[in-house]
């Protein structure tokens, strides 16, 4: 077997040298597609973190008008506590609201001083277990009689509900769209690199068609005939993948620290575990493309 291994590698290397322009093309396309794929994966993790951050801050506020009965408020309060997906319900009195407002406005105390009496309404503030399922809780609130009695303003109950309407939906939609667009791009590039590698291998096969026909004639097994070419495809793919991984690591080490200072609200500090995971995904994808490209190119020649 030892001579065979040597044979396979030397055949692959020879063909590599002979068709270096095509080989370079194959490496370059696979490098680009994997680089894009890696960037998309990083971006994905970034956006996921951001959405999770925004989502976790979402809560439902019910504004209560000043004449509302305490009994109604208590009834709604306990009904909500019993509702599925509700993590906690906090009742804010006028004083607590004022306190919070004062805290928020501490840089301009004169605004507070100008207030005659406390104009702030009371509120019920609801934290959710799963912010994705916010609609269910909202429906229950809207259907509640107590809610329509305590809502502030009383003539427009919808205005009494405050849950950052639409922000989450918009964000999730945008993320989803970005993900799809990214996937399509990565897919197209993967196909392009597949075609490129396929072409390179085809040229290599063409250059050696006489040898191949003799190999088939004297009974070399398909595996034996195929191996050098598959090896060549894999070699191209691995080089492309390693380049892409190097560039991503470079960006992480040299570009992101600078960006972090400018864009402090985004967390650019990717964990090593994530980077390793992405590197492995890129390598595996690259090798798969390399093998697939070579096998497709060989298929026609191995038909008896």
């Amino acid at each position, binding site marked *: 077997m030892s*001579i065979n291994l040597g044979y396979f590698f030397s055949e692959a290397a020879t063909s590599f040298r002979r068709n270096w322009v095509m080989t370079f093309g194959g490496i370059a396309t696979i490098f680009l597609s994997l680089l894009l794929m890696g960037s998309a994966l990083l971006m994905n993790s970034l956006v996921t973190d951001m959405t999770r951050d925004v989502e976790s801050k979402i809560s439902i506020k019910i504004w209560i008008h000043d004449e509302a009965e305490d009994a109604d408020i208590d009834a709604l309060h306990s009904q909500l506590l019993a509702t599925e997906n509700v993590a906690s319900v906090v009742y804010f009195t006028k004083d607590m609201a004022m306190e919070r407002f004062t805290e928020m406005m501490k840089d301009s105390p004169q605004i507070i001083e100008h207030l005659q009496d406390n104009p702030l309404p009371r509120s019920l503030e609801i934290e959710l277990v799963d912010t994705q399922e916010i609609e269910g809780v909202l429906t229950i609130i809207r259907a509640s009689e107590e809610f329509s009695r305590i809502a502030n303003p009383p003539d427009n109950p919808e205005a009494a509900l405050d849950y950052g309407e639409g922000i989450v939906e918009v964000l999730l939609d945008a993320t989803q769209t970005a993900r799809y667009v990214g996937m399509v791009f990565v897919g197209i590039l993967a196909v392009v690199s597949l075609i490129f590698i396929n072409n390179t291998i085809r040229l290599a096969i063409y250059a050696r068609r*006489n040898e191949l026909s003799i*190999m*088939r*004639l*004297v009974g*070399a097994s398909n595996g*034996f*005939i195929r191996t050098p070419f598959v090896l060549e495809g894999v070699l191209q793919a691995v080089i492309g993948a390693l380049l892409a991984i190097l560039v991503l690591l470079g960006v992480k080490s040299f570009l992101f620290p600078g960006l972090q200072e400018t864009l402090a609200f985004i967390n650019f500090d990717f964990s090593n575990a994530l980077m390793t995971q992405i590197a492995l995904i890129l390598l595996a994808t690259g090798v798969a493309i390399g093998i697939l490209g070579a096998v497709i190119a060989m298929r026609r020649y191995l038909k008896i």
Partner: protein
Amino acid sequence: MTDLESRLDQIVPEPQFSPRANRGPLMISMKNVSKRYVANRAALENINVEVAAGEFVFIVGHSGSGKSTFIRMLLREVIPSSGQIIVAGHDLGRLKNSKVPYLRRNIGCVFQDFKLLPNKTAFENVAFALQVIGKSKHVINTQVPEVLRLVGLEGKIHNYPHELSGGEQQRVSVARAFVNRPPLLLCDEPTGNLDPQTSLGIMKLLERINRTGTTTLIATHDQEMVNYMRQRVIALDEGQLVRDQDRGVYGNVD
């Protein structure tokens, strides 16, 4: 030539029996074999042939009579439209694609155009055939010089094909076909590119190889050679088997 023959006689014992008269086990069996490349015209029509192990057989006929199809079907390069072919114990109709290489290791092939690799020496060309079926360096280094000596090329084993004459190139090609000691040797117009004198040398070489017990099939339209050799002749005409004759001649197939 006589030099070569005397050397071959040392290596190869004279046959103890006349293969045809004393039939051994079957090497090739074709039953009702037909091949159509296009729908209505048959390249081969209803062929029934049996060849015993150790026979020497000429397949004769004009261009387009089906000789090449006949040879290529035995190699399973062409699959018959109908009928059964058994070669060296393999039923070709049931042979999986992945097993075809193992069939071919039992069959040596010689072609009109030699099919040598121009960038390899005679030694390397023959060695290549062993290398790609996974033989060790040791086997290659002992068998290749031996078979090249057998075909009379011991002085030219490191020459490239372009440094050899046509006859010598065909000898390399025969050496490559025979180096693995296959039980069956198929030749498609082996002397098609050679002058009569050189052709005779190749034919004698093939006959010597046949005497080692190797079943030998030669497709040819070289009348002189067939008439000279007086071996079994199978004649094809427009895809039909028109004659199967022991110690036959090329005859008048017009």
